[in-house]
């Protein structure tokens, strides 16, 4: 199991693996927003939590179709399906590798990007906590979407359409934690909801992903 995780991370960071893709997209969104809405730091501070969460979500979405598509194209997915590794473990490891190569860099870079949008200083910690807690849900839900569309040529559009509605609750509660934190309010309730969504997704979705992957490999 460790071998699969290490292989996926190694493939992601080697040439053409798309490791920096999400991070670069996040940076572009955050840098361009002040050009679009104007340099008023008061206004930026108000919209910063929402923009940062939206940017993180979209950069996550960008790399979803790579989760299974590459393994499907070169035949490794068939071979992994016949390997002594339960399909549920396979999809969980794929989601974990996606989170480690996409979610974690976003979480680590978010304070820097928050600075670009003049987020109030008390909002930094809630922002990082909400992203750290919310991005695993994005990876797990995205893996489910990727399993549904595996085998479709250029299934990226369908994948986005399937996954975006499922991302809405995570976005609402994640951005709410960051907004309340920035305004110095209590973040307990949205944080609990966000944690619930994430742990629920981690507990249940691998079974659904494994089931649709089995059907798609027939």
């Amino acid at each position: 199991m460790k071998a699969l995780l290490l292989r996926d991370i190694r493939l992601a960071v080697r040439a053409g693996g798309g490791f920096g893709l999400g991070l670069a997209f996040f940076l572009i969104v955050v840098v361009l927003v002040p050009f679009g809405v104007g340099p008023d730091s008061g206004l930026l501070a108000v919209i910063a939590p929402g923009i940062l969460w939206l940017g993180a979500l979209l950069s996550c979405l960008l790399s979803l179709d790579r989760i299974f598509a590459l393994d499907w194209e070169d035949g490794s997915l068939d071979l992994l399906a016949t390997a002594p590794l339960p399909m549920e473990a396979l999809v969980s490891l794929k989601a974990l590798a996606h989170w480690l190569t996409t979610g974690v860099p976003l979480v680590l870079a978010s304070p820097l990007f928050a600075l670009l949008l003049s987020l109030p200083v008390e909002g930094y910690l809630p922002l990082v906590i909400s992203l750290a807690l919310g991005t695993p849900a994005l990876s797990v839900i995205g893996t489910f979407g990727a399993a549904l569309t595996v085998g479709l040529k250029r299934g990226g559009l369908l994948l986005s359409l399937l996954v975006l509605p499922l991302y809405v609750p995570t976005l609402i509660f994640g951005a709410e934690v960051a907004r309340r934190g920035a305004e110095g309010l209590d973040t307990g309730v949205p944080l609990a909801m966000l944690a619930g969504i994430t742990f629920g997704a981690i507990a249940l979705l691998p079974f659904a992903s494994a089931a649709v992957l089995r059907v798609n490999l027939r």
Partner: protein
Amino acid sequence: MELNVTGLSVARGGIPVLEGLDFTLHAGEALILRGPNGVGKTTVLRTVAGLQPPLAGTVGLEREAMAYAGHADGIKTTLTVRENLEFWAEIFATGRIDAALAAFDLVGLSDRAAGALSAGQKRRLGLARMVVTGRPVWVLDEPTVSLDASAVALFAAAVRTHLAGGGMALMATHIDLGLAEARILDVAPYRAKAPAHDDFDGSFL
């Protein structure tokens, strides 16, 4: 150990292609499936390997006994030959890749990126994975595509070693491997009749 396939019917894309297939494979035996293109050889092999369920009939061994090699080799082009094989050795918890490298004459290439290999060398790497799996039944779909004559001889020798160790091999191929002991089964007579088929396949139940 023996592989006992009885009354196997298989479907491709919801349409039955072969039905009533029976064969038995004992330890140390090889069976070659023959038949025209599109008759369903690949579908039979995928069913035996456990990648899709049969329409009817049984495959007498659990899928954990099978090692499958399809048309695609499952090679990661940015990893080296050694890294590719070591990955599978760890997944299958066998940990020995030197024999596999030697069997397919890949020792000299072991530190080269797999993307820089020729088509025949890639195929040899894909077949070397079968040695690494350590599983008793090899299920091979057109294993000799893009191999030259000497590589085909290497492959035949690897299959013979596997059979001598009590393994089994089930393969679909059109060329003569020089495996005189292998039995040949022509699957064309088992072609499915025009279907009185309920096309609700229950996949989503």
